[in-house]
């Protein structure tokens, strides 16, 4: 079942706030470390705080992307979502938002976002859930 020659689970984070970026990266790292079953499930996490840098480094074999909705440079998570889906249809895009702008977020879901996570007390739980699901899928594919 555990085919370690299989591609690692690639996770990317785009969050313009450095603090929150680090926090999220740390949390995702912790969770993936828990799920990796003593490093038998390889994973790779990369985080960005800048829209351009994110897109220029984005790889088409990315499994999960956590994207903040409001970004600098007049960009939003929706813009990133379009770009990701254009290059990598299977990538799960999770939009992070700290306020409930339902119109924009509904639009994201309609345009292919796999989920919305609000930055509140439940952020960790929902991130954990997404990662759990991803690891299950990875095992299944293996």
């Amino acid at each position, binding site marked *: 079942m555990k085919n370690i020659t299989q591609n690692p689970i690639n996770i990317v984070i785009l969050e*313009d*706030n450095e*603090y*929150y970026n680090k*926090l999220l990266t740390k949390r995702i790292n912790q969770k993936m470390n828990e799920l990796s079953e003593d490093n038998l499930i390889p994973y790779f996490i990369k985080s960005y705080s800048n829209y351009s840098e994110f897109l220029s480094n984005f790889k088409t074999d990315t499994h999960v992307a956590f994207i903040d909705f*409001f970004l600098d440079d007049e960009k939003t998570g929706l813009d990133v979502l379009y770009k990701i889906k254009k290059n990598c249809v299977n990538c799960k895009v999770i939009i992070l938002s*700290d306020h409930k702008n339902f119109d924009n977020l509904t639009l994201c879901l309609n345009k292919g976002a796999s989920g919305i996570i609000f930055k509140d007390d439940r952020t960790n739980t929902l991130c954990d859930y997404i990662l759990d699901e991803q690891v299950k899928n990875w095992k299944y594919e293996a």
Partner: protein
Amino acid sequence: MKLKLKYEFRFIILLASIFVLVIISASFVYRKLAKTIDNISFQLKPDEQILIMKSIKNDLIDAENKIYSFNLTKDYAYRASFYKIVFESEKKLRRLKNNSSEDKSFKTQIVLLEKLVLQKYQIVDSIAQIQNQYRVNDVLNKVEEQIQVINPVKAVPKPKEIEDKSWKDVFKKRKTSKEEKKLDNIEKDKLLNFKKEIGEFKEIEVNKELNNNKLELGLIQQDKIVMSKIDQLFLLLEKTERKSIAKKTQIAKANATDAKYFLIAFSLLSTILLVLTSYSIVQYIRRNNEYKIMLQKAKKDSDDLAESKMRFLSNMSHEIRTPLNSIIGFARQLAGSETISKNQGEKEQLGIIQHAANHLLSLINQILDFSKLQANKVELVMNPFNPKIELENLVMIIEPNVQEKENRIFFRIVDKLPENILGDEVKFKQILLNLLSNAIKFTQKGRIDLIVKASKPQGEKIVLEIQVIDTGIGMEKESLSKIFEEFEQENNSTSKNYGGTGLGLSITKMLVELHGGSITVTSKKNSGTCFTVFLPYEITDKKSPVTDDKKSLREVKGINTPINLVQFLKGKKVLVVDDEPYNRKLLVSILSKNKAHIQEAENGQMALNYFDKNWFDYILMDLRMPVMNGVEASKVMRNSSNLDKRKIPIIALTADNSENVQNQAAMFDGILIKPFHEADLFNIMQKFNNSNEIFLNSTETNSEKTVIQQKYNLQALRDISNGNNDFFTDMIETFIRTTKSGLFELEECVKQNDLKTIKKIAHRIISPCKHIGAKDLSEMLAKIEHYDETLMNLEDIKKIVSTIRIEADEIIERLEKEI
């Protein structure tokens, strides 16, 4: 109690009687039954005497048979067997004799039997001896036959025999002897002589035999008689024996009947006792239930009474607190006025009013606490707290009172206290405050020691041992047992000299017991008193929600004693809603002194009218009012169509510190319990103005009312750091850096009137602020993030940004200390 004992005693006596009776009856029945069983088993065994007798009888027959066999076969083995049987019979007779009972006639009969049996054997033996004498006759017959073989003609005729057969033979032989007369004369004579001799001898022998026969006949006759006697004797003995058995059977029967009656009696007795026991138990249960119902009713009545007492006290306390609020409030206002401060006499009189009012307030609080505790209306609210910080704060709070009586206080922690424990910090402080206040009250120019140590942890459990030792007036030993009882003081003079309701220690004890702890006291008259409290707690990893910010009061910066002018109130519009004119007047006095604009309303309805037509920065709302109460009015305000007006801070004012009010707390932005100190009012109000001023109520010792604003909470960050200090520090540094740069950008945008970018920046920095629990800062940033251009202008934004700067700088400063 007496009744219960009586019943218990009766029940025990009854049970003991049943036990004894059952044992006695069971023992009787057992003995009777055992006897009966013995008898039956004895009867079941075949009677030995009869058996021996039968055996002897068989021996007699057997012996006779042996003798007959011997007579017929001439086999001496039979004769030997005969003697053996005789020997055996003798033994059996001896046994019979030995086994015979004490019955003399029976014994005599046995002796007779012995004689007869032996006689019988002698007879049989004699007959055998007689019968054996025929051998001579046989020998002679053989001799005669021999002679005839030698000379059959001269055969000597056979002697006359007794039996018929012998006589025939003799007749035949006489015929033969006539033929022999023709034989040789010499031989004839010899033979004749021989024949004659033989004949004579034979005749003698035949006579002897005849005699023997007679003797034998006599013996046989005798034997018959003896045998008949033996049979009769056997019958008699058997009869006697059977009689004895019948007698024993009769006894066994009687025993069985007795046992049966005993069993019946035993069963009856047991049934009666069981019925009695059951009846007693049922009675006991019934009465017990009756008492239980009575007790429940009594308890309910008592609870109802306690409840109504508490309600009454609560109402009374409300009614008393309301005027007291005016008294204390105006007294404070007067104390601050220039006229009073110049007049020493008036100042002193005002001091007395203040002191008396505070004392009255403390009494009301104590009575209310006591009645709540009595009505079991007090529960522990479990939260993590740092005992060291709480103790330090407590010492600081009481320090002015200590100094007032020229005392010194020493606070010592033995070893180390756990950083965080799970418990009710308010009650913890209340216990210690009561004990410390007590120590201060009874000590003048002395020393008060507060010594705290923690027991060795047992798993997560620890016990805090707290000692409050004073060098005050102390107590007599006899008084110590009573001091924890309500309304008890050492003696009347104590209450006269030192005041107090006598409830303080009683409340303390109840609070300690509510914790599952204990309190002890030792004291010596004129030497001092030592109270020792043991309070169990649980060590926790969780930190107090305010631990990060709740530094010891000594460490908190910017604490001011009440100030005459509060800057943040300047120009603010305040709606004061209270039906009590004195209270309104007091609030107006406090607020207008600080340049706030006041609008007064007498009830909720009036307040709503003003609310609809005007904008207010604050609403101070009394809860109990005629026409429309404060809760209803606040509900209407919270549902106002004007969204901004919904957010106007409403601070509830109430003299009712009951649970109901606490439950309604969520609806209000703050609750002020009357009577309140103006510092309390300012502390609550400044939260909504983003002022960084903190006002410490220097005279009020109730720490519950001391509000120190919580700035942030790093628990979430600590949780995710999972002990990784580098990460924790890095995150704090990142927060500081990004927030600083965000603030800088924010201020730049304000300078450039770039309101659009302001929103984005606020959005960017708000998430970390939320994450570290900087609630006020987050709320202020949210105002900018979601600002509505139609409702707010640049000036408003500037104000908010400046308060954000102050708040953020303070948080950053504290965070820098954290790392």
